[in-house]
């Protein structure tokens, strides 16, 4: 358990600036999720904390101590690699036991601990196989088990559940959540899965092209995205973003006219989540258009309208049915959150 601090850290690969100079503090016992599109520097950030990647400038502190020059083994971390990094010549049992063996845990204690951990990730029956005899998801669970078999100061997990089926992913997620509650170890976790990010994180860092664009609680990230990138990236289906202008206290765009509490201005982007919209039969609906697509997701139907270049998606009731191209109308639900962004800078406009 320790606080991790990145102070003015910068990372370059030759001439390529992977991570521009920035600072980040991960609180003691926190579960920080790194979220961002492929290639934005999530793995690189982890590898720097682990000590596998040299930092170009700046300092990394673990538990208040500068660790720039400390080798990985002295940083007391455990890591799940994105592509597993299992030892191919060892059995599952030996793989999981290796960190314990290296730290001098005696055989008896080791075996008990390995068995217990293997049960947690549902690998109990595969202990004597080699990695080459396992499926992708099973390998990933071995990698996870090898990391959680020990209680380090910091867990670094690079997409540890990405290859599991939906069901196993949910149960592993709960397992990790419980483990974090139980041990309280500072955890840095990379995922592409927003659900995972939302459910696990104490805070989420949304990254873009090496830069952390927003660092906040999942709730805050969801309800108050700092800019257009975060707004579009978080949430599934993603937030509707409509370009337009504000006149006389209303946001206006082709087919859209919504009252907003903001000063007059041009070039704004309005954002509203599909779940904040509902179908309406009102006389002068705020959003009008032709029905473009209907997608049944199970508990709801996603209704997409088009009007000119504007396309808006709403979450309607599962039983909703209509003809494609039929005229359709939407309205914000009571209490719906309406987001406004500056079109040029992409930044959120305070309401």
């Amino acid at each position, binding site marked *: 358990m320790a606080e991790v601090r990145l102070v003015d850290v910068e990372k370059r690969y030759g001439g390529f600036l992977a991570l521009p100079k920035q600072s980040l503090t991960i609180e003691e016992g926190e579960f920080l999720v790194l979220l961002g599109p492929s290639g934005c520097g999530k793995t690189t950030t982890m590898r720097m904390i*682990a*000590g*596998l990647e040299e930092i170009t400038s700046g300092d990394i502190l673990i538990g208040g101590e500068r660790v720039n020059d400390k*080798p*990985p*083994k002295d940083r007391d*971390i*455990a*890591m799940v*690699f994105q*592509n*597993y*990094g*299992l*030892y*191919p*010549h060892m059995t599952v049992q030996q793989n999981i036991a*290796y*960190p314990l063996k*290296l*730290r001098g845990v005696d055989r008896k204690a080791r075996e008990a601990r390995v068995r217990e951990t293997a049960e947690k990730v549902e690998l109990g029956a595969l202990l004597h196989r*080699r990695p*080459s*005899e396992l499926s992708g998801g099973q390998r990933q669970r071995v990698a996870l088990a*090898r990391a959680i078999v020990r209680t380090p100061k910091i867990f670094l997990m690079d997409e540890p559940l990405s290859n599991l089926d939906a069901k196993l992913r949910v149960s592993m997620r709960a397992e990790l959540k419980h483990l974090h509650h139980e041990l309280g170890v500072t955890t840095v976790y990379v995922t592409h899965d927003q659900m995972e990010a939302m459910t696990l994180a104490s805070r989420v860092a949304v990254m873009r092209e090496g830069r952390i664009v927003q660092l906040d609680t999942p709730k805050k990230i969801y309800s108050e995205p700092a800019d257009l990138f975060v707004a579009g990236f978080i949430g599934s289906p993603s937030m509707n973003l409509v370009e337009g202008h504000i006149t006389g206290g209303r946001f206006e765009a082709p087919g859209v006219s919504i009252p907003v509490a903001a000063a007059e201005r041009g070039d704004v982007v309005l954002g509203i989540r599909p779940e904040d919209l509902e179908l309406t039969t009102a006389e002068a609906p705020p959003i009008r258009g032709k029905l473009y697509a209907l997608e049944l997701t199970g508990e709801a139907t996603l209704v997409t309208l088009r009007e000119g270049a504007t396309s808006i998606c709403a979450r309607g009731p599962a039983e909703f049915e209509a003809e494609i191209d039929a005229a359709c109308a939407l309205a914000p639900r009571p209490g719906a959150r309406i987001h406004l962004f500056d079109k040029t800078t992409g930044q959120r406009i305070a309401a």
Partner: protein
Amino acid sequence: MRDRSLQYVLLVPAFVIVLATTFYPLAYSLTTAFRDWDLTRSRRPEGWVGFDNFAHAFTESHFLNSLWVTTIFVVTSVALTLVIAMSLALLLRRKGRMHTFTRVVLILPFAMSPALIGVSYRFMFNPEFGVLSNGLAAIFPWLEGTAWLADPELAMAILVLTDVWHWAPYMTFMCLGGLASIPRETEEAARIDGASNIRIFFGIILPQMKGVLLVTAILKTIFALKMFDQVVTLTGGGPGTSTETLAYFIFNVGFEWYDMGYASALAWILTAIMMTISIWYVRMLLSERKMATA
């Protein structure tokens, strides 16, 4: 004519040539091994003598000596080559500025003809004007006047040296290929798990290199067993018979003593040794593969 059969027809000439140039001499030498054939007496093999030629070998100290010399040569040169190749590969693994340069330099010894290597080392170890003998004497004064190639042990050492010098670079490339195929994460995971460098090498890298090292060892062993050129140009089997390897001894029996029957028998003994060793290696390799991929 169908494409398929045309393919086979086109292969026929190649097949005939290969059969004529390999199987015919092979079969001929096999029959010769069971016959009496003294080149000074006859231009064709003479009477059948059963296993006499083979029996003769195992009662002759000359042959037994060459077997011993070959064993020493093979074991030391294979072991040294592998250790040096593996170490060099570890050093050269990281891609630095010198990357291309070091690799070009490395390939040079391998590009040299073994016969020439023998000649050049013979010069370099010449007690009077040799670069190496003089250089060594300048650094270690007590080596002054050492007749390198006149001493049985030293001559063998130099013979091994030339062979290692010739082969280590090539084997280094094989090891580099092997190292490159090890996923970087396995080593990094071990580093994070708390393994020291030595432990990472023996516990993580070496086990993953087993397959490559075995193949390298097979190749090197076979090449060492056949090694011939440097004996001719460097030591001539001497001093005495101290560097007379099996291949060189066979050559002598055939083309110095003109005993073709005996030479053929010896050649087949060498072949049998190589086959046995190869089969043993391949077995190990197969069980290794099975472990890695089953």
